[in-house]
């Protein structure tokens, strides 16, 4: 059998609470910048918690040139911005690309939740007549990818993979298979979610939202912080990237997907271990080859404990020597965008040989006794990075990024 085509990352676009665009985002990550602030999207007075990771300085207008921003939901706006930033970063101009050879694969947790929230507001206000065509035209989750492709006029494969908090990794993985199968020359792949009352309500009800800050792996961690954002990576086959002389961040060298089949919200660990093992085998690397793990690291008591144990099982004796950090300590949990943003961080770590820190880390937890890159970015050779994501539904996804040999 022929060697399978290799897939590389050549562009990164991110819209986050700590920076818009790959370079501002990366600088903010290394500086340990917090994107957490008081929630402004809706009134949090009925809740016991009031913080979130909203992207407060985002203006969609410079990015939506074909679609009108008021006709699309906020998650689509974030995704379009990330897609344009990624293309610019990759040195690609959409109007000079073959539209049929460019696909869009996006992950999300909630699609466009503000549209069903508005539907519910009208319904409860006895204003059902005010519910118009925009609900069906904007709400369904597949509109995220449809809007990105409509904005940029891309006609290749197009779908949304809404696998909750691991969705970005799933979307990147399936995009990778599309490129390997010759179904596209370029895939825009990533994830987007906007700040959602429904999501906030759910996590608040679970008692999972931290009152002041997100402290992954700290003994006194008090939970996650809901956030929003988007990341899109430009993926292309290595031969295509080389032919156009593209700068390469990293190779997307492998992935593993599994399901716990255990509980809707409680992680099991076994599925996470298998996903890491499958990803490493797929990429042809051993645990000792992995230089950095981007943790799911939500900051909840259960996640961080189970995840640390799973990494120990998957990496064996090498586990204490693998630096693992959670950028959710800065961004909060951006839901379906999270693993896409973390994939961007992995690609940047591979390119720059530096590790973003886990911020707010103060007190070691005996149940979480790995190297979490506490509070300070670190210069460190990164040949291989692993990006882990876990979701409601027991969905687990691990990706491997590696440095391209010179």
């Amino acid at each position, binding site marked *: 059998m022929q060697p399978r085509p290799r897939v590389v990352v050549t562009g990164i676009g991110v819209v986050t609470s700590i920076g818009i665009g790959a370079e501002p985002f990366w600088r903010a990550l290394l500086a340990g910048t917090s994107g957490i602030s008081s929630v402004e999207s809706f009134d949090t007075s009925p809740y016991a918690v009031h913080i979130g990771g909203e992207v407060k300085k985002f203006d969609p207008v410079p990015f939506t040139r074909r679609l009108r921003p008021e006709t699309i939901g906020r998650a689509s706006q974030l995704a379009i911005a990330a897609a344009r930033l990624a293309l610019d970063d990759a040195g690609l101009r959409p109007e000079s690309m073959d539209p049929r050879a460019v*696909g869009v694969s996006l992950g999300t947790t909630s699609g466009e939740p503000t549209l069903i929230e508005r539907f519910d507001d009208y319904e409860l206000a006895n204003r059902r007549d005010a519910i118009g065509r925009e*609900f069906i035209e904007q709400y*369904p989750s597949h509109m995220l990818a449809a809007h990105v492709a409509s904005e940029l006029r891309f006609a290749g*494969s197009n*779908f949304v*993979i*809404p696998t909750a908090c691991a969705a970005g990794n799933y979307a990147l993985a399936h995009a990778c*298979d599309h490129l390997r199968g010759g179904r596209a020359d370029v895939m825009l792949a990533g994830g987007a979610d906007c700040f959602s009352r429904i999501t906030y309500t759910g996590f608040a009800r679970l008692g999972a939202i931290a009152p002041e800050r997100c402290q992954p792996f700290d003994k006194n961690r008090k939970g996650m912080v809901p956030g929003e954002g988007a990341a899109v990576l430009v993926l292309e086959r290595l031969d295509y990237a080389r032919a156009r002389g593209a700068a390469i961040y990293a190779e997307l060298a492998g992935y593993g997907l599994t399901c716990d089949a255990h509980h*809707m919200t409680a992680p099991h660990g076994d599925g996470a271990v298998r996903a890491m093992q499958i990803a490493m085998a797929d990429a042809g690397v051993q645990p000792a080859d992995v230089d950095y793990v981007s943790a799911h690291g939500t900051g909840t008591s259960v996640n961080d404990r189970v995840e640390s144990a799973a990494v120990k099982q998957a990496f064996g004796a090498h586990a204490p020597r693998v630096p693992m950090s959670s950028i959710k300590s800065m961004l909060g949990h951006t839901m379906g965008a999270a693993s896409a943003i973390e994939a961007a961080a992995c690609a940047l770590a591979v390119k720059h040989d530096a590790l973003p820190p886990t911020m707010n880390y103060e007190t070691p937890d005996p149940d979480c006794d790995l190297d979490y890159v506490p509070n300070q970015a670190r210069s460190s050779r990164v040949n291989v990075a692993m990006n882990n994501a876990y979701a409601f539904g027991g969905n687990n996804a691990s990706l491997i990024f590696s440095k391209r040999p010179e």
Partner: protein
Amino acid sequence: MHGRGVLMTGVGVISPLGDRADAVFQRVCDGATAFAPPTLFDASAMPGYLVAEVPAFAPETYVRTGNIRPLDRTGRLALVGAELALTDSGWNGDTRAQQPIGLILGTMFCSVRTIGEFDRRGLQAGPQFVSPMDFSNTVLNAAAGQVAIWQRLTGVNSTVAAGAASGAQALAYAAELIRTGRADVLVAGGAEEICFESALGFARAGRLAPPDDRGPGCGVPFDARRTGAILGEGAAFVVLEAEETARARNARVVGRVNGWANSYDPDALQGDRKNGDMLAHTIEHALCDAGVSGVDMVSASASGAPALDVAEAAAITAVVGREIPVTAIKSVAGESLGAAGALQAIVALHAMRCRRLPGVAGLQAPDPSARINVDAATRPLDAQRALVTATSHEGNAVSLVLSLS
């Protein structure tokens, strides 16, 4: 195309037309529609509209004893559809645990009813009074996760959304995972429930055959008098296996997925369907992917939508020609959104096996601008290979090429 063969070893259907694939096929052939006023929600919200609901759906009659309470209607439809498909393919309770079986679910909404009710409960009673169990069902992969827990499916588990093309997209997604060696056994298909939120939304968007129009042809694919779709629901699944896996266990083979492709029409949101050329492009690619030059029948996604049906017809004509017989099932089954593409695939398999092509029920005045070979009557068929086409209003296009062996 390089890679492993992708075989189909079982099918499962829970639909307004029944819960056995052969009975559903017979009803499609008979043109026995399932349309009635909605009972799943207060019909006064949209008086006069008809829908196709799964009648008296009782999931506990299909699955072993256990607590189905945590599953919403979409989850229950998916659970039963997957159970029927796994059983049909010979993966029983014991053998399912022997290897990681995965699940690929296509759905447009998962359950927007669950999501809407959760939100409204939080607004009315306060956020501390919502149910944590309901929250876990608000994620769009909830149905796939619930089915995995119930069926102990520890392999790849994913959900894909491509509007009304989601079910076909799920089959393509699963076939890719098997061809490339990432999975050996996958249950793949789609599920969608009828609920107040989506039904009202479609009505407000003008997508449904309006209640003042009950004339002949109103919700009929390719009919000149079509005015929109009749909303449906259900679940349809196929068990896909790597050829070597299926052969090693001497599985009965009900078909093969030969090729697939998908694309997007970036002008669809502007209302310009360009005569369906993106769908034509996917048909060409799917044929190429399958390594074949043509097909013997088409199972189309046409739903009675004024513009979309004609665009689909144009794409079919452009690539496979005007003579190839075409069927469309949505004037019997309704527009079941995420479930539709998988149901179309199952009907295509039955048509080839039973050597009968279902008529397009209710077709009286074929649209002269849809230059395809359609007929109201069920016809004899001699087909080795079928094309399944799936389109969405929003521009998604998926094509699958299937054969019996």
